[in-house]
């Protein structure tokens, strides 16, 4: 900043800050709407005018996790009194929770959420593991045609998912990998591997070679130096890369839509399929969306200092 600031400059600065605050509110409004709808009574989700302030309740989450049917008759008072609080909320809405004996029947949501978790975690571990080794190779050794190989690796990331999905669908059908966790994990590893190599190479390049060379002089083998010196130094980079890969796999929609439909279906294709016909229950959809977005929101804050590097494949650091 220039040393001398005129009053008009100060005013301009203030106006810019106010504009930033207004823009932030606008950008967060849709996210607020998802979060607030998840805690609204059903009728307030579609009220005119839209409801901003209300008494929050957790009924949408109870509906999200349970299988229910519409009640033909009002519930018997003694049954209602004996029911736990969360079941009363469902009776209040004119519905009944389905049970087998004493066990409450769960909706498909927890299963889909677990599928997302399984696929995202396993594919992340594999992509980051392989990516770290490969990045070290590219960072430390002379490789013929290095630039071309790196371009080849990155270009696999840019392939449109639907283009790759057509032959993969046919091949998976032949070997029985359709609608399987393994099938989806393989696709996500292939998708995230290039990203992980590029990002990790940036982190590896930042670790001084002298560290390993000193270890080699001290009698370490190259592998020992890699595991005992390089990996601990790269821990932050590995964590950041892993979180990015997790978010990508967690959010992925096209492959999941095409390759899975029941057993291995993840949350992103499942949540839109809840809309169904007729008037959708937006509070339950919002509750599912809210729980699905929550881990990503938390990770975004943990990643905040690495976001720039992540979205540019490690090319731009700060």
């Amino acid at each position: 900043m220039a040393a001398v600031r005129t009053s008009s400059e100060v005013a301009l600065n203030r106006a810019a800050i106010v504009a930033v605050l207004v823009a932030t509110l606008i950008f967060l409004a849709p996210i607020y709407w998802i979060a607030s709808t998840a805690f609204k009574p059903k009728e307030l989700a579609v009220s005119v005018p839209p409801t901003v302030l209300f008494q929050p309740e957790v009924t949408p989450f109870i509906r999200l996790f349970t299988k229910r049917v519409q009640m033909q008759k009002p519930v018997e008072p003694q049954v209602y009194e004996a029911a736990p609080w969360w079941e009363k909320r469902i009776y209040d809405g004119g519905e009944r929770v389905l049970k087998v004996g004493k066990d409450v029947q769960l909706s498909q949501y927890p299963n889909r959420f677990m599928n997302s978790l399984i696929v995202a975690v396993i594919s992340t571990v594999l992509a980051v593991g392989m990516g770290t080794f490969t990045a070290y190779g590219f960072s430390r050794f002379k490789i013929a045609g290095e630039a071309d190989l790196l371009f080849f690796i990155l270009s696999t990331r840019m392939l449109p998912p639907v283009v790759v999905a057509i032959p993969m669908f046919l091949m998976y059908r032949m070997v029985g990998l359709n609608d399987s966790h393994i099938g989806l994990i393989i696709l996500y590893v292939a998708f995230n591997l290039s990203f992980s190599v590029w990002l990790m190479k940036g982190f590896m390049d930042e670790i001084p070679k002298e560290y390993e060379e000193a270890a080699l002089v001290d009698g370490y083998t190259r592998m020992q130096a890699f595991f005992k010196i390089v990996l601990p130094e790269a821990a932050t980079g590995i964590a950041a890369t892993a979180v990015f890969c997790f978010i990508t796999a967690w959010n992925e929609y096209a492959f999941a839509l095409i390759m899975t439909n029941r057993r291995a279906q993840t949350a992103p294709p499942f949540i839109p399929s809840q809309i169904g016909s007729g008037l959708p229950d937006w509070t339950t959809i919002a509750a599912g969306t809210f729980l699905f977005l929550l881990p990503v929101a938390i990770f975004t804050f943990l990643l905040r200092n690495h976001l720039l590097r992540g979205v540019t494949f490690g090319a731009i650091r700060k």
Partner: protein
Amino acid sequence: MASVALTHLDPASRAAARGWSDLTIRNLFIIPTLVFLIVFNIFPLIYSLGYSFTNFAANRTEPWQFVGLQNYRELLSDDHIWSNFVITAKYVIVSVAGQMIVGFGLALLLNRSFPMKGLITTLLLLPMMMSAAVVGLFWQLLYSPSWGPINYVFGLGDFAWLSNPDSALYAVAITDIWMWSPFVMLLSLAGLSAVPQHLYEAAAIDRAGWWYTFTRITLPLVSPILLIALIFRTMEAFKTFDIAYTMTTQPTAELIAIRLYKQAFQQWDTGKSCALAYIVLIMVLAITNLYVKYLNKVKER
């Protein structure tokens, strides 16, 4: 003594004499990744290139026939496909232009010090980290003609954003702008913070006006990074599938990726879909090439 002789060699070869050689390690670290990518990315593409010359349909059992270039000829003379490309072009231009303007604008506003700047910047970046399909779905409620908050706030009555053929594509583009302007903002902020302060000080001493400083100092120095953002977003917008697919079913918003999906997995016209996939692939690779070229340029600085 062997150990005495080894002390005269450089450390790398001493290590090599003890454990695996560097060459072995290099191959061990790199080859599995390359093989994995070739098996699961390149081989499928070769496989589908073969099918693109046939009339294969994945939902039928009767044998397929080799049809030569017929699929490509039919696609290139199909008005429907051309209209999908025109829709995609419109979408790319509107949404990328919007993201560049909003994103760079936000970065200009943020490029000063104020309390809680870090927190606000991170909050602004939230939309781009979220699942386009899931968030896009929820925008259906925001755009709803009967109870959507957007129509209420802007007093648009019962304007049906997503079921009106004229507005559906732009409604999706607005959501995309909301989602990805933060990306342009993030890159622009990096570019802006790299502009040396002394240039601004020199301009101030010369009593240069705001516009002059902006066009002669800020823009030229930020433009390489803006170009990266522009190319990357263009490529991503061209491939858009999820957000448009979950938001609307309007034929006027049928992007090329959606068309490809329907042709392959709803009409099961597999051979022709492989051909269309190749046409799309070549266009994407052309943009990717450009992107990597500029990425390397910025990286070298």
